[in-house]
């Protein structure tokens, strides 16, 4: 067997919801533990780091705002990959992944907007401005709400999976717009200062705590996503078993009537 065939077989094995549940059960305690430890370490480092010479103490908001903003885009990108999994490969877990991620992405985006707004008031003198970055992130939040509504509008998840996947892929056009909005338009929001071609412009004393916090938030996101996927798989099993139970209940009295 070739290496590619072996890899395909391994990925196919993971596509089985029962195998996924077993893997999730063994991974979750470690993943959640690592997330909590990294977040605690990141926040201790963040509060031990020096204050910014311009922003003063409000720079501490960056340690939660920036990871939440990154993850709001990461979550949507992952959902777009899941949408491809639904439309192209009909992967059994792809729709589960998309549906489970949407509320987490919505909360992370709302928190990124809220923490950014709280930072904006003392630094910009305003809670909100309709500049390209803030507006495109707000559109992302609305996209999440739309996907949440669509994935929950129909009782049969198989029927909503395709339309949710198409909507997610169409909405993916917003992700590069968010990323490059600060370069393409003149925005009040500052341009990128970590992921730049010429390297980060933040001092290492502030950058390292930020990266540890970002890693902690990423592991937290993954833990929540795996938990939400597990709940969704169970929900679909419960629905299938209830349907089966109802069918059995219908068949039995009918048989009894004939005899």
């Amino acid at each position: 067997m070739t290496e590619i065939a072996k890899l395909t077989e391994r990925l196919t094995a993971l596509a089985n919801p029962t195998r996924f549940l077993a893997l999730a059960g063994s991974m979750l305690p470690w993943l959640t533990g690592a997330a909590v430890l990294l977040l605690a370490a990141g926040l201790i480092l963040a509060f031990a780091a020096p204050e910014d010479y311009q922003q003063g103490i409000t720079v501490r908001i960056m340690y939660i705002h920036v990871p939440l903003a990154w993850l709001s885009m990461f979550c949507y990108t992952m959902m777009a990959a899941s949408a491809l999994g639904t439309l192209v490969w009909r992967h059994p877990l792809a729709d589960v992944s998309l549906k489970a991620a949407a509320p987490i992405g919505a909360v992370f985006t709302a928190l990124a907007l809220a923490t950014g707004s709280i930072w904006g008031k003392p630094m910009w003198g305003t809670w909100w401005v309709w500049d390209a970055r803030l507006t495109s992130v707000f559109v992302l939040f609305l996209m999440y709400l739309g996907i949440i509504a669509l994935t929950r509008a129909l009782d049969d998840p198989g029927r909503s999976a395709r339309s949710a996947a198409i909507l997610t892929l169409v909405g993916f056009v917003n992700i590069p717009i968010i990323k490059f909005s600060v370069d393409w338009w003149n925005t009040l929001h500052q341009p990128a200062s970590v992921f730049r071609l010429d390297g980060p412009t933040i001092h290492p004393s502030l950058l390292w705590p930020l990266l540890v916090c970002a890693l902690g938030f990423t592991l937290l996101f993954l833990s929540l996503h795996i938990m939400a996927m597990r709940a969704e798989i169970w929900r679909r099993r419960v629905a299938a078993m209830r349907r089966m139970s109802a069918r059995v209940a219908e068949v039995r009295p009918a048989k009894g009537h004939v005899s």
Partner: protein
Amino acid sequence: MTHTAYVIAAYLVAALGIAGLAAWILLDQRTQKRALEELEARGIRRRSESRRAGESPR
């Protein structure tokens, strides 16, 4: 409002939001798991499980 108050407000909002989300997911997990266990206790099996057990699907 001092700058410290803005920092505290931002951390409080984030903590409440994440705690609420985590609580909602954990509660949903528990509800689904209980419902699944209840159905299994009533002897209802999914078709794939019935086939694995060598029974004819009900």
